[in-house]
């Protein structure tokens, strides 16, 4: 079924690409080091990692939810996979990492759909207690001394291309097919647009919701594995700002935070912009503190802008009131 889109969506995409190009040009002028081969490869690697996590966030947001727990799911996956790698080997370690991500995502999904906990609270809670668990298990210290070959996922190459990029592209294809060619995808778009109506038409909203959060967990787990591999150690604080970065990426990319619409390429563009900005700030030697401030500002501005753009959409009074008052989703 075709859902309502904001007008001129092709123009919007062209607009975002333009913004990305402009930002890159400005940075290159200010700091020529940006264009160095090693730096560009680094940016591509990091944006591939962020893109993986952003795919997950995009899937959840399209389905009408949100996932604030991404940073702590990454923490758990990083710590557990590193620990398991030390004892069981690299492949089992990675597999366990993905499974942990799926399991945590599943917990989120069940809490949200079966127990009616609002998505913000369930995932915020997971953000808090999963970080605690990850820290507790790792005793607050990084897990080092990984076996040879562990770093392949994060730092290796297949031919001339860094592995993370290959993974990001592969997952892009997979998730794109999932969103646009499967029942799960189509139902997620419907649920995000109007979950009550979708439920009334007989769709098992709960099942698909849980699936979206499991997908997010798996994709976050992948991102965490690549990152863990890159720094060759498992840490609880591997990606503390990940949930915020992914939300900012989704918003900048132009996907509505209300759900019901979105193209995966927007997630890629958003993730790239965020990574480029982060990299630029690093290059200009701006302190971490200012980076935090900038990211905070970016989130506020990006989402405001997005809302302003969308204020013309004619959602029914009932649906709007429901959104604003935070009515819970049906089972």
């Amino acid at each position, binding site marked *: 079924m075709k859902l309502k889109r904001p007008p001129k969506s092709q123009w919007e995409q062209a607009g975002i690409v333009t913004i990305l190009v402009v930002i890159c040009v400005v940075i290159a002028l200010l700091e020529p080091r940006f264009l160095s081969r090693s730096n560009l490869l680094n940016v591509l690697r990091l944006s591939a990692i962020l893109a993986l996590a952003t795919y997950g966030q995009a899937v959840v947001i399209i389905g009408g939810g949100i996932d604030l727990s991404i940073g702590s799911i990454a923490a758990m996956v990083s710590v557990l996979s590193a620990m398991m790698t030390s004892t069981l080997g690299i492949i089992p370690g990675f597999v366990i990492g993905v499974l942990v991500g799926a399991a945590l995502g599943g917990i989120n999904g069940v809490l949200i759909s079966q127990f009616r906990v609002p998505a913000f609270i369930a995932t915020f*809670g*997971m953000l808090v*207690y999963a970080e605690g668990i990850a820290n507790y298990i790792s005793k607050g210290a990084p897990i080092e001394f990984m076996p040879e070959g562990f770093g392949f996922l994060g730092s290796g190459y297949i031919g001339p291309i860094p592995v993370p990029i290959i993974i990001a592209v592969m997952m892009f294809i997979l998730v794109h097919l999932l969103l646009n060619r499967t029942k799960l995808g189509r139902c997620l778009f419907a649920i995000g647009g109007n979950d009550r109506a979708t439920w009334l038409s007989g769709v098992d909203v709960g099942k698909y919701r849980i699936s979206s959060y499991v997908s997010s967990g798996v994709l976050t787990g992948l991102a965490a594995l690549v990152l863990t591999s890159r720094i060759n150690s498992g840490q609880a604080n591997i990606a503390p700002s990940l949930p915020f970065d992914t939300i900012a990426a989704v918003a900048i990319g132009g996907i509505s935070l209300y759900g019901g619409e979105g193209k995966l390429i927007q997630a890629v563009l958003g993730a790239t912009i965020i990574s480029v900005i982060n990299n630029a700030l690093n290059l200009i030697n701006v302190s971490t503190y200012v980076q935090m401030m900038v990211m*905070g500002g970016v989130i*506020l501005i990006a*989402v405001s802008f997005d*809302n302003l753009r969308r204020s013309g959409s004619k959602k029914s009074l009932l649906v709007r009131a429901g959104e604003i*008052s*935070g009515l819970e989703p049906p089972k």
Partner: protein
Amino acid sequence: MKAIIKNYWSSLGIPIIIAFLFIFFSIISTNFATADNIRNIMRQASMLMLASFGQTFAVISGGLDISVGSIVALASVVTAMGTLKGGILLGCLAGCVCGALLGATSGFFIAWFRVNPIIATIGMMSLARGLAFFLTDGIPITGLPKGFAWIGSGYLWFIPVPVVIALLILGLLYFLLSETVFGRNTFAFGGNEESARLAGINVKLYKLLAYMASGLLAGIAAIVISSRANSGQATLGYGLTLESIASVVIGGTRLFSGEGSVTRAFMGAIVITILGTGMDLAGISPYIRQITLGVIIVIAVMLSKIRSHKGGY
């Protein structure tokens, strides 16, 4: 029968929990039930109470304030700087204004640009924390005048000053929220914005005011906390956000429903403080404490949904 239990639980539930926790921790740790520790608990609880009162405003408006801890950090730095420049009074004023301004900024984005409150306050969280570190490079601001420490560590007769402040503000807010037009209007739109707007209430303004109040109370909390630490630090307030949400939720307030109660936040803060202090004294890892808080929040929200039977789709 169920109805009777529900009724009693609503009013007696939390005092029962407080008593239970108190007894529990006294058994586990010998030095829990000492006069010293109780005074300490009262002091700690007062600081959390102030932050929780602010969080209550955000909850009444139908959202949440994730930036509480970070506002405390920045307000603490501003207070210290102001005190060094122009005396304690100026410092405190600066801290309050800082908190109020930050809250108003969040409120502005939430009300006028319809940014989701949680996302907006997350943005503010990064902004405020970053600015606090930027101003101080992470180094505490010390050398504050002698009188400053009295606010956080002193006594009025035999009562710790923070307790007096918290109780005074509790009384003020209770009156404000239940007896004034401002209070009535503040409660009006959290549950159903559209009907409040149709009733003629300036929803945008009140939303902004709610977050401004939250920021202001965070600023006041910052003054007390900085005074206790006798310095302004950008590292303060970590965990305060979480604890303030936990206090509100354990107090029995339902989230995203336009309800809230400063008295419930008051009692919730006592529970959370006893829990935290008790765990510390018993030598339980701070990570376990974090896990407990997160789980408590989720479970409490779950229970409140079950209790309310809301949303019969």
